[in-house]
């Protein structure tokens, strides 16, 4: 009887140790699963929740990167330690056409289906601060536009009237999400002390219009004619005499 009790106590103790450890670990992992906004994944990285189940934390992508853009997150940085990241403001992605980091990945956490670096979506550039962006002040900085590897496609300059002077134009840098790879060259090059254009994870940078929403002019283009009467007639309501 005593032996059996001792055995059961031993098992319970061992299982208890493990459960305690697992609980703490699970909570810690949950807490640090989200990537901080300044950290970007290499090209071809799967969606974050899939990436954390796929990346072996070996660092082979880091070794393959010729520009030392990539590094492994260290313990205590508030993200999954050992996973590859880069910071656009420090060293952006140079978008190698042969994508050596993806080739080096042994697990497929970086998707080998990515053959064209222009289709990479590491993040999405956003003008996060119109109040300090020089072009928004009517000046001709244009640096983010100039350094973009997809010049004239991922960032365009949209002419607006400069209301302050009344006689000049403003050239507003405008990012196009269907072209921007999130390489981060614009953020790196921004001449301000703190960049006014930043590359954010796509999920944080992109809005969504909602599936139910219809834009009349697009529907008209698709259908070849207006879906409703072109000019709506509303009854005129006046106060009773």
């Amino acid at each position, binding site marked *: 009887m005593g032996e059996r009790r001792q055995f059961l106590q031993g098992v319970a103790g061992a299982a208890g*140790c493990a459960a305690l450890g697992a609980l703490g670990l699970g909570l810690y992992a949950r807490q640090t699963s989200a990537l901080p906004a300044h950290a970007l994944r290499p090209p071809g990285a799967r969606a974050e929740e899939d990436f954390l189940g796929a990346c072996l934390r070996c*660092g082979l992508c880091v070794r393959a990167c010729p520009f030392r853009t990539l590094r*492994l997150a260290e313990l205590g940085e508030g993200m999954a330690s*050992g996973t590859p990241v880069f910071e656009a403001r420090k060293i952006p992605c140079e978008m190698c056409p042969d994508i050596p980091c993806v080739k*080096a990945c042994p697990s497929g956490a970086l998707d080998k289906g990515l053959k064209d670096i222009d289709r990479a979506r590491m993040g999405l550039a956003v003008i996060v601060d119109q109040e300090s962006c020089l072009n928004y002040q009517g000046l001709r900085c244009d640096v983010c536009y100039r350094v973009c590897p997809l010049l004239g496609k991922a960032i365009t300059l949209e002419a607006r009237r400069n209301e302050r002077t009344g006689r000049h134009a403003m050239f507003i840098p405008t990012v196009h999400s269907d072209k921007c790879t999130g390489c981060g060259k614009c953020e790196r090059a921004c001449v301000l002390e703190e960049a006014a254009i930043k590359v954010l994870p796509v999920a944080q940078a992109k809005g969504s219009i909602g599936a139910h929403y219809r834009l009349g002019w697009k529907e008209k283009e698709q259908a070849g004619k207006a879906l409703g009467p072109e000019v709506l007639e509303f009854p005129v309501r006046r106060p009773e005499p």
Partner: protein
Amino acid sequence: MKNKWLILRRTSQLGLLALFLAGPLAGVWLVKGSLASSVTLEVLPLSDPYVVLQGLLAGHAMAASALLGAGIAAAFYALAGGRLYCSWSCPVNLVTDAAAWLRRPLGLRAEVSLPRAARTWLLGATLVLAAALGAIVWEWVNPVTLLHRGLVFGLGLAWAVVLAVFLLDLLVAPRAWCGHLCPVGAFYALLGAGALLRVSARAASRCDDCLDCYRVCPEPQVITPALKGGASPLILAGACSNCGRCIDVCRQDVFRFTHRFDRRRD
């Protein structure tokens, strides 16, 4: 030679680290990557089968390179002794051996007795966590890969985890980490359950009960069945890490390395 196996073992551990460090420090790229996954001479892929298994349980269809690398490593350790990984490859062993070695002159006694089965339960828990959270969760804190990756890629706060393991082994319980808690060791113990390379107490008849082997062995419970049991002189327990320390310290030359079917006695 005295301490032959200890010297060979340290050479293996430090040599492995040197191979990984030769690239970043001297630009000699014999091995790239880390213990979790690496490429040797641009051709041979090796991956940690435990990490790859967690990835599979997390729901990721691993690419061929990781599967092949894990297969090669698993086959090697399954034959050569699963926990050979612990005492011949793992960098944390240097830390915990140092703690165990320091305990003796400092006269530190065991304070807490941890159950040895905790590591197997923890192994199970890490696999369940991987499946439940869809992430390779153990790699967030695994001291083995944290230390190795830290040395090869940049330490961060990994030193704190390694220090914690050292203090745990030194002050809380002897051989606490490798002998009781580490799920990596538990995985390799299961992997090497049928390993070919084993230690045999072939000359058990010469044993003069000095207990030197028990004192130095990180897993002393594995010695008794071979040394004092009747059935077989072989140490067949998966917990034995083939460190060969018992062979080194035995003045009667009771122990030797052999294969698991060699039941000869002197």
